[in-house]
């Protein structure tokens, strides 16, 4: 039970911090199906808009699905419930994935999806918290969402709220110094209600692919496990498209005693064969034929 600034006492059941049970096969199947639907919606909304990123959203969909459909405590009827868990898409250019998942979860109206990036739409190119109560923080400039997430996590602690904060970062994004400022402060304050997930798809906008043939030197991140450990974070490395692994790693964070980072190995464009691993799809506009092909592959 939490008392808020307003003096209102929240009657909703507090979040448990006890470990959650193992995920069942039926639950997993439902999550996998949801992720697939959301992938199709990413394709639809980006194609409809003729703008927006594709590769990054597709690599992030499974993480988002696991969060919004399994791990996070929230109530679509009360999007601003103070004790809700928060999600911040620090890699804000993957907004189509966020919008697709929010709509599937009932936090956005489906009809708004096809207004993406159009004048007057709540679905801005990058997530804008002033446009919808379902968006917990405005992002788009890489590295910033993580700091805000730390602030929100600290705020929850100060308010005595069990709210947890999940922040999704890009692997390229981790080149921003601000990410390490945040990591350092979270380490010092041992902010255990903060979970970072790295969408480790191995690609960024340009990167070093063309520049270096030396093995390892084209990587978006060098030795990330060692780096995060040295910064005092608990580190889990998982397959970011393996729903069972995602769910169990994310569920485990609820009992963490230190800030936790999940290095989720992913693939840009995941789920659409001709986009997978091809960074040309970072933000390319699809033809109608490509859109149809992608949707067909996704069974939509």
């Amino acid at each position, binding site marked *: 039970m939490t008392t808020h600034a*307003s003096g209102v006492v929240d009657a909703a059941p507090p979040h448990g911090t006890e470990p959650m049970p193992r995920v069942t096969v039926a639950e997993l199947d439902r999550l996998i199906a949801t992720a697939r639907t959301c992938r199709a919606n990413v394709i639809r909304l980006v194609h409809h808009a003729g703008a927006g990123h594709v590769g990054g959203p597709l690599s992030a969909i499974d993480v988002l699905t696991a969060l919004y459909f399994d791990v996070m405590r929230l109530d679509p009827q009360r999007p601003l419930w103070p004790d809700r868990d928060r999600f911040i898409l620090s890699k804000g250019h993957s907004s189509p994935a966020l919008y697709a998942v929010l709509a599937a979860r009932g936090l956005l109206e489906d009809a708004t999806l096809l207004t993406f990036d159009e004048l007057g739409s709540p679905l801005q190119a990058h997530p804008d918290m002033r446009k919808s*109560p379902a968006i917990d*923080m405005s*992002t788009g400039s890489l590295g910033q969402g993580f700091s*805000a997430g730390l602030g*929100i996590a600290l705020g929850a602690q*100060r308010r005595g709220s069990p709210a947890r904060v999940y922040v999704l970062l890009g692997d390229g994004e981790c080149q921003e110094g601000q990410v390490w*400022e945040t990591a350092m402060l979270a380490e010092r304050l041992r902010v255990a209600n903060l979970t970072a997930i790295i969408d480790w798809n191995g690609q960024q906008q340009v990167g070093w692919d063309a520049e270096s043939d030396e093995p390892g030197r084209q990587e978006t991140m060098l030795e990330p496990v060692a780096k995060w450990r040295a910064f005092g974070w608990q580190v889990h490395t998982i397959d970011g498209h393996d729903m069972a692994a995602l769910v169990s790693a994310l569920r485990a964070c609820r009992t963490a005693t230190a800030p936790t980072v999940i290095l989720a190995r992913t693939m840009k464009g995941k789920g659409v064969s001709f986009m997978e691993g091809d960074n040309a799809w970072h933000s390319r506009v699809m033809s109608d034929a490509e859109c149809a092909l992608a949707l067909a592959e996704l069974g939509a």
Partner: protein
Amino acid sequence: MTGQGALADATGVGDPAPLTAVVRPARLANGEGRSISLRDAFGEALLQLAQADPDIVVVDADLSNAVGLTSFPAALPDQYLQVGIAEQNAVGVAAGLATWGYRPVVTSFAAFLTSRSLDQVRVVVAQTGLPVVLVGGHAGLLAGRLGKTHVSMEDLAIMRALPGMTILAPADGVEMRGAIAAALAANRPVYLRSGRDPVPAFFAADHEVVLGAADLLREGDVACLLSTGSITPLAHAAVQLLAEAGHEVAHLHFGTVKPLSGAVVRDVARGRRLVITCEDHSRVGGFGSAVAEILSEEALVPVLRIGTDDVWVDSARNDALLALHRLTPADIAERIAERLTR
């Protein structure tokens, strides 16, 4: 579910009420009152406010003592968050705290807050409208012994470029006390300009800070001087020198640099031969430019912008810098007299 109405909730992201635009006759200290620096007045006032309101939280990028919060950390440790020398993270963390209804006050030097963390101020403060108060210490020439990396002569120009920022530049310790209270009450992003060195009390102790209001310091027919920030007392002395020389120059102080009421500025300009602006800031893009933007629309009255030239400021003693940049009362008076008798 869309639109901003839905957000006027505990997260404090509602649309702010418009500021009042008024001109009030000012009551001056006239030798009464304490000499105190803006930073110390800020520190005293914030400590009092925070003692009364546990939602006020200082987010400090390792400069709290330099901006006047010497006793705050020990007095209210639960309302003080040291983030280290990391201005970018400071602003982001403050924004996150603000979503919970906290009233974060970020402390650093003006030079760093408005440049090192500008992207963060832009995206998670100004664009979200979260009520974060940014306190930029050591602004202006009078922190001159730190040199060009630390002396911000550009902060007003930079902050003015951000939609939705409210910018306050108090003249003295009395006004600083009111300004920090008003900034916290305003429920919107605020940049508050602070300074280092003691200045004699300028306003009477009961001077009330109202965001957007201007203070009429003196009447005068020929011209009107508009000043902001801690140069107002020097400008006031200049206006007195001018009066002695037979130039009756009206004087208004603007503790709020943005928003600036076009109506007020036009009003005081009309019928006079010259408008003069005066600020402890570069002549490019700051308060004077805001006035020039307004008055140039109708070419109402010529505008003489007094501030530093478009050069980097070297380190030196305050008096040497004021003399070099011709910002002593005598210099200000001379520049205005020159222009009036041309």
